[in-house]
């Protein structure tokens, strides 16, 4: 088998000019990615941005229309079988047969990776142990919690000891505690040397786990870099506060208009007002308090923070990360923004 030229010794994944259309829908309009071995690439974007299409091409499930993709030195089109021997794919519990026990599920996957029966059995035991599922090993997977099913699914993707792991929205729909557990597992995989490509719509997830982040929107890479690099593109610190009395938002915006670098951003639904203040952090904070006090506007939750990937997404695309989502899945603002998300939902419910 020939090594693809330009497959690059240190790169686990190389994608160049990848395109894919479904009829009139241009899912990918020419994306480039490169993932060095042993690192985590976070692919960030709203639903329908093209993340899943990219993963499906890289895992040999879908043929690209144009461009090329190389995984562990193997072309995903011409050397699909070799690619499949190097990768693992996990995501939303699809590999799990709910009627079977955790142990049976992993043993069967082991057999499908052509392990001998004794080896398939011992590999199942190892993985159940590593993923904290030993106690539940002989229970049907349908009795597992969502977090346990997701862990079992991830364990299944590791049966073949892949060098490159694709995680397609691994924590979508998980409760916060299971999510943190999943993050720990992913970190330990990286520590063990696995290369990971992780798609997510959660900005904090990419921020936490990824060495490099690419932001995809409408089938194109609109930004790439480390979390810090992306944040610095938004420009410095952000002063943010909440105006409990929504009628005073306009006044608040006017009061602080002079303290920052650009226009303040106000969300009329949540009452959250923010403004980029460059490197004048604490000084701007004091200015903001003075101006708002002088204008007689009551505020809450005043903070000075580094820009989040939320800000990055807003700055890059002009819309928030979850705007294109369907109702009922607005989970992206969990974590540091949980309170805000809650209030947002409340505001919707009462309006």
């Amino acid at each position, binding site marked *: 088998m020939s090594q693809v030229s330009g497959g690059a010794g240190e790169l686990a994944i190389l994608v160049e000019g990848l395109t894919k259309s479904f009829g009139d829908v241009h899912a990918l309009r020419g994306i480039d990615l490169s993932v060095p071995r042993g690192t985590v690439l976070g692919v960030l974007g709203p639903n329908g941005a093209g993340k899943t299409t990219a993963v499906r091409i890289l895992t040999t499930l879908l043929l690209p229309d144009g461009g090329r993709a190389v995984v562990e030195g193997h072309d995903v089109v011409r050397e699909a079988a070799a690619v499949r*021997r190097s*990768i693992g794919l996990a995501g939303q519990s699809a590999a799990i047969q709910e009627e079977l026990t955790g142990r049976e599920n992993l043993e069967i996957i082991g057999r*499908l990776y052509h392990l001998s029966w004794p080896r398939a059995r011992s590999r199942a035991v190892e993985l159940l142990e590593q993923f904290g599922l030993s106690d539940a090993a002989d229970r049907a997977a349908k009795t597992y919690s969502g977090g346990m099913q997701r862990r079992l699914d991830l364990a299944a993707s590791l049966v073949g000891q892949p060098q490159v792991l694709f995680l397609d929205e691994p924590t979508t729909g998980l409760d916060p505690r299971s999510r943190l557990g999943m993050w720990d597992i992913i970190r330990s995989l990286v520590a063990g040397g696995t290369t990971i490509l992780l798609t997510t719509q959660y900005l904090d997830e990419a921020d936490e786990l990824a060495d490099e982040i690419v932001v995809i929107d409408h089938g194109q890479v609109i930004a790439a870099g480390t979390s810090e690099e992306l944040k610095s593109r938004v420009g410095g610190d952000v002063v943010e506060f909440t105006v409990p009395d929504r009628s005073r938002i306009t006044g608040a915006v006017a009061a602080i208009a002079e303290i920052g670098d650009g226009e303040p951003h106000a969300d009329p639904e949540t009452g959250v007002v923010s403004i980029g203040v460059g490197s004048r952090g604490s000084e701007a904070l004091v200015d903001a308090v003075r101006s708002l006090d002088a204008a007689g506007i009551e505020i809450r939750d005043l903070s000075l923070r580094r820009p989040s990937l939320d800000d990055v997404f807003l700055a890059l695309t002009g819309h928030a990360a979850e705007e294109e989502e369907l109702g009922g899945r607005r989970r992206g603002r969990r974590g540091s923004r949980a309170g805000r998300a809650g209030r947002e939902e409340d505001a919707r419910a009462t309006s």
Partner: protein
Amino acid sequence: MTTITASAGVHGAGDPSLRTRFGWAVTDTLTITRRNLLVWMRVPAYLMFTVIQPVMFVLLFRFVFGGAIPVHVPGGYVNFLLPGIIAQTAAFATFGTAIALAQELKKGVIDRFRSMPMARSAVLAGRLVADTGRMLVTILIIVGVGYAVGFRFMNGVIPAIGMVLLATVFGLAICCISAYTGLAIGDEESVQAFGLIWLFPLTFLSSAFVPIPTMPGWLQAFAYHNPVTYVVNAMRALALGSSLVDPLGPNLWKSLVWIAGIFVVFLPLAVRAYRRAS
């Protein structure tokens, strides 16, 4: 948590030989077969559908409708009925094939398998093998229940085995059609509804339950040329003896031609639908 090691690589570089790949195709198919049979045994509803329902049909036709259906067959209606109900059950068993494949497609199971270095044919092949095995179990149960309510093979052991085999091969052919519909439609409820639309007329508008001459003329035309009729007639001849019912020869070769035709058309269609499935 301790470090989880994943990057060792169980597989050497290089593509395996053709012979190794064929061996894998067989073991992968058996692994998937085992998985499907385990699931079948774990879900009471599936067992119910494949065992209880056919038995109820036997009892219903034997004791409720049977008395009103005049047949000129040695041993009476129960001997006429059994081959027909076995053929129908074999066809109906493929509902499960279509539904399971549609579910696996929708849930992403098939995608996951296709991202693994297993034989690509194994998901479909394992499904067909498991469902055929399941079908065979059901057929044997019906024969057992049939014996309890008066059915008797009257033509010797070898033809009796031939009857069971013919029913199974016919069921496997219908399985290919169902596999294709399941993969092509890809939605559990639609697949189920669609199955009713073609499987009910196909099996009931045949010689399975009533003598065709009792049907109105326009329906006879369909029933006489229905492949299920050929299969059921051949099964009856195998079970009871050619001299007492419709002759074996013409019905058997027509059955086999139909079954071969179904394989030739629908197996490639199912394979293509599986490859395209996404």
